[in-house]
């Protein structure tokens, strides 16, 4: 078999904008999300949560709750074992407190009852005796040697002595001679920044339906970014074999990283096991905010030296991240990403992870990067202002390119930063005039992107249509792009392909839908699976024609003789081949199972215009443009959607979103009323500009696009506001009181 490879690939389906296959289901309300299914005899599960930020659980008395008519099961941490694996133990302890509650909202017990009203009444009958402990929710406070210790015994060997036990890990990255670099600088700026913890804010609360039988077999339906991961974690927590737990991913109502772990799923399974009935659990919005996985809260110092003509001579950042009451590695991601857009001779980042009495951090779009790059891009902007330099020119002058030794170690391959910078420079937005009280901010952004474990089965149906089965929940249109890549490779129309997401028993393990990996990795596996099927179809036709396999080619959905020398045969279509598949050896399918590597890194740059009301501190975003390298945009609509959606989330983060803890360590704003995500009237049009610098690691050049877009808005907005006011902003969110306070402190 020969694959005809052309120089510059001319795509037929990839790059077009067909309707998504799940579109109709979703606009008529028929698509089934986590909370949308029921089972006969189903019970309702509810969780009792800690009102304290930090307390020892002295005792739990569930007897009155158990005695309430309609209550079928009550569980506490005693109904689970204690996993040896520390990561698993953390996940389980986050789902159900063991010995101590570590944050406001931490689960302490759960009930399954015949109705929500009975379940709620039962929760009130559970008597928990707490012994309150001192708490700490601020990252800098938690590092001090005398801070209340959230958890003991978790400190890695990397941490130097002198800190609180809350400091669990330390990391350092970079290269070059900092001292010599700073000595060459004409101007050095050093500043400290903080960012509040934010939440992914997906509109669909976590929901699941668990059903375990007396024989130990169980079914779990849930909204998740990765049902294989759910299976692995839940089966381990419940002491089951993975084969006995079938997990089906529902349609998912947003995740952004927040649905990459479990919160209620092991609890629902345990309640089902104990009650012998199916148990449905749906989190309230209050529970979502208090007890799922927000981002880290951060405190950062950045020091950068620059020459008069805008060359960065040395750069340094100290990052202190808190991912809540359990260890997390997010600071490592921030420390690696901080200076990624720059080509630097001397750079160093240092990172500390810190425990606080907050819920365990979960991923949120490019986890760790937005906070670090916010601080770095703010200082670069301030240097540009002080030295009278154009901020875009300075980025160009220092931009990382192919061959640049990155700040985190490897040398960059083909990357799209320069292309995005050039596109931004040429865009009318960059040179548009500004009015009074208005400012324009600029920031670069970066994310690593991942590949990972992926299975795809591609069946050629007997009528010549194509069924693709993959294992990654479709969080933003991926079924369409996977179908497009299958159609492209097979040379058949998009409409002939249907992509479905299999449950854990219908196809092998696939990693979580995270790290911007799906279009890259599932796409790659789909292309390879299509090639596998093509190879089989070519082989069968060659046999029919009685010629060598090498003498046929696959082209546009047909097997054809490779050349006139091969013989004079009428090309056979995929439909014709499929129709006789039973006679030629049986059903035809292509498979590919891979740990996909070689995901290309992604850069983007954003321009933001704002107007600040100097009397109230209100910020209005006037104009916003996103430039991002997509490698190859498979379905440009959904690439644009990722760019716009990430930008909107970043704008929310920059202006209003934050976890607010009171003196008592309790979360003050666990609802959409006071956790202020952007509403439609808050935002302008967000113009997306897609750049396509092919990723050499993918057959079509695809790069992940999901995460980079949330990185630049923080600094783009902060730089815009700072320029509008003439005052440097150093904390997020820039809520109106924060802005007015900064203005009055600066005496402007």
């Amino acid at each position, binding site marked *: 078999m020969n694959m005809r490879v052309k120089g510059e690939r001319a795509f037929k389906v990839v790059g077009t904008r067909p309707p998504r296959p799940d579109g109709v289901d979703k606009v008529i309300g028929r698509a089934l999300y986590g909370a949308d299914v029921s089972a006969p005899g189903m019970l309702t599960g509810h969780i009792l949560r800690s009102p304290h930020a930090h307390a020892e659980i002295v005792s739990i008395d569930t007897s009155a709750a158990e005695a309430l008519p309609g209550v079928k099961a009550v569980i506490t941490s005693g109904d689970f074992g204690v996993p040896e694996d520390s990561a698993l133990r953390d996940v389980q302890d986050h789902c159900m407190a063991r010995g101590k509650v570590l944050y406001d909202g931490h689960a302490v017990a759960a009930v399954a009852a015949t109705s929500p009203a009975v379940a709620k009444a039962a929760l009130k009958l559970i008597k928990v005796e707490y012994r309150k402990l001192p708490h700490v929710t601020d990252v800098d406070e938690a590092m001090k040697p005398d801070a209340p210790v959230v958890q003991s015994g978790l400190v890695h060997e*990397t941490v130097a002595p002198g800190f609180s036990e809350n400091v669990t890990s330390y990391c350092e990255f970079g290269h070059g001679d900092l001292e010599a670099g700073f000595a060459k600088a004409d101007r050095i700026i050093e500043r400290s920044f903080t960012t509040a913890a934010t939440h992914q804010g997906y509109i669909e609360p976590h929901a699941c339906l668990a059903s375990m039988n007396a024989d130990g077999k169980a079914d779990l339906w849930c909204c998740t970014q990765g049902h294989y991961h759910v299976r692995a974690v839940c089966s381990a927590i419940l002491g089951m074999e993975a084969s006995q737990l079938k997990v089906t991913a529902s349609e998912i109502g947003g995740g952004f990283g927040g649905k990459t772990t479990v919160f209620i799923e092991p609890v629902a399974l345990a309640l089902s096991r104990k009650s012998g009935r199916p148990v449905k659990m749906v989190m309230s919005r209050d529970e979502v905010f208090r007890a799922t996985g927000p981002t880290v809260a951060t405190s950062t110092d950045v020091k950068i030296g620059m020459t008069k003509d805008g060359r960065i001579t040395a750069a340094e950042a100290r990052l202190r991240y808190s991912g809540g009451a359990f260890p997390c590695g997010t600071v490592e991601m921030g420390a690696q990403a901080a200076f990624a857009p720059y080509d630097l001779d001397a750079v160093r980042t240092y990172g500390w992870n810190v425990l606080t009495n907050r819920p365990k951090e979960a991923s949120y779009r490019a986890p760790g990067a937005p906070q670090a790059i916010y601080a770095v891009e703010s200082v670069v902007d301030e240097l540009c202002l002080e030295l009278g330099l154009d901020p875009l020119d300075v980025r160009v002058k220092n931009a990382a390119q192919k061959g640049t030794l990155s700040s985190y170690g*490897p040398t960059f391959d083909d990357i799209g930063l320069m292309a995005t910078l050039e596109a931004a420079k040429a865009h009318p937005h960059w040179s548009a005039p500004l009015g009074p009280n208005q400012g324009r901010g600029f920031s670069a952004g970066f994310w690593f992107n991942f590949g990972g474990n992926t299975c795809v089965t591609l069946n050629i149906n007997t009528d010549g249509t194509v069924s693709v089965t993959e294992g990654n929940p479709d969080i933003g249109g991926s079924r369409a792009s996977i179908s497009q890549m299958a159609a492209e490779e097979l040379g058949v129309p998009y409409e002939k392909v249907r992509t479905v997401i299999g449950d854990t028993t219908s196809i092998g393990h696939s990693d979580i839908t995270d790290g911007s990996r799906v279009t890259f990795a599932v796409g790659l596996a789909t292309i390879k699976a299509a090639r596998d099927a093509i190879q089989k179809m070519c082989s069968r036709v060659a046999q029919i024609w009685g010629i060598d396999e090498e003498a046929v080619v696959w082209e546009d959905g047909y097997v054809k003789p490779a050349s006139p020398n091969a013989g004079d045969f009428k090309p056979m279509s995929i439909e014709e081949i499929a129709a006789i598949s039973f006679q030629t050896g049986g059903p035809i399918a292509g498979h590919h199972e891979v740990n996909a590597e070689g995901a290309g890194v992604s850069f983007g740059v954003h321009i933001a215009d704002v107007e600040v009301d100097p009397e109230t501190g209100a910020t209005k975003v006037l104009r916003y443009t996103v430039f991002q390298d997509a490698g190859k945009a498979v379905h440009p609509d959904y690439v644009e959607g990722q760019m716009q959606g990430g930008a909107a989330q970043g704008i929310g983060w920059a202006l209003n979103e934050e976890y607010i803890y009171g003196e008592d360590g309790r979360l003050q704003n666990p609802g959409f009323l006071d956790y202020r995500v952007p509403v439609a009237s808050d935002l302008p049009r967000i113009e997306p500009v897609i750049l396509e610098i092919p990723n050499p690691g993918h057959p079509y050049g695809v790069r992940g696009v999901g995460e980079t877009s949330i990185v630049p808005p923080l600094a783009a907005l902060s730089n815009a506001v700072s320029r509008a006011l003439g005052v440097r902003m150093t904390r997020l969110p820039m809520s109106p009181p924060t802005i007015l306070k900064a203005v009055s402190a600066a005496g402007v």
Partner: protein
Amino acid sequence: MKVKIWGSLRRFTDGRGELEVEAKNFKQVLDGLAEQYPGLKPQIERGVSLALDGRIYRESWFAEVRPDSEVVLMPYMTGG
């Protein structure tokens, strides 16, 4: 061949940021490092990624490394 490690691991490698190991693939890189520098073991067990000529590999024991490859050890990467 040479393997670059990140800064905070230098505590366990007598201050060296670039290590020499005999390896033909990712797995051999890790085994070689752990053998020569036992202090790196806890981190390797917690998880590491490998950048090979600029591309990041999260696992893949058999990813081939050549004597002229640029090999950089990185923390295990997670995304959203």
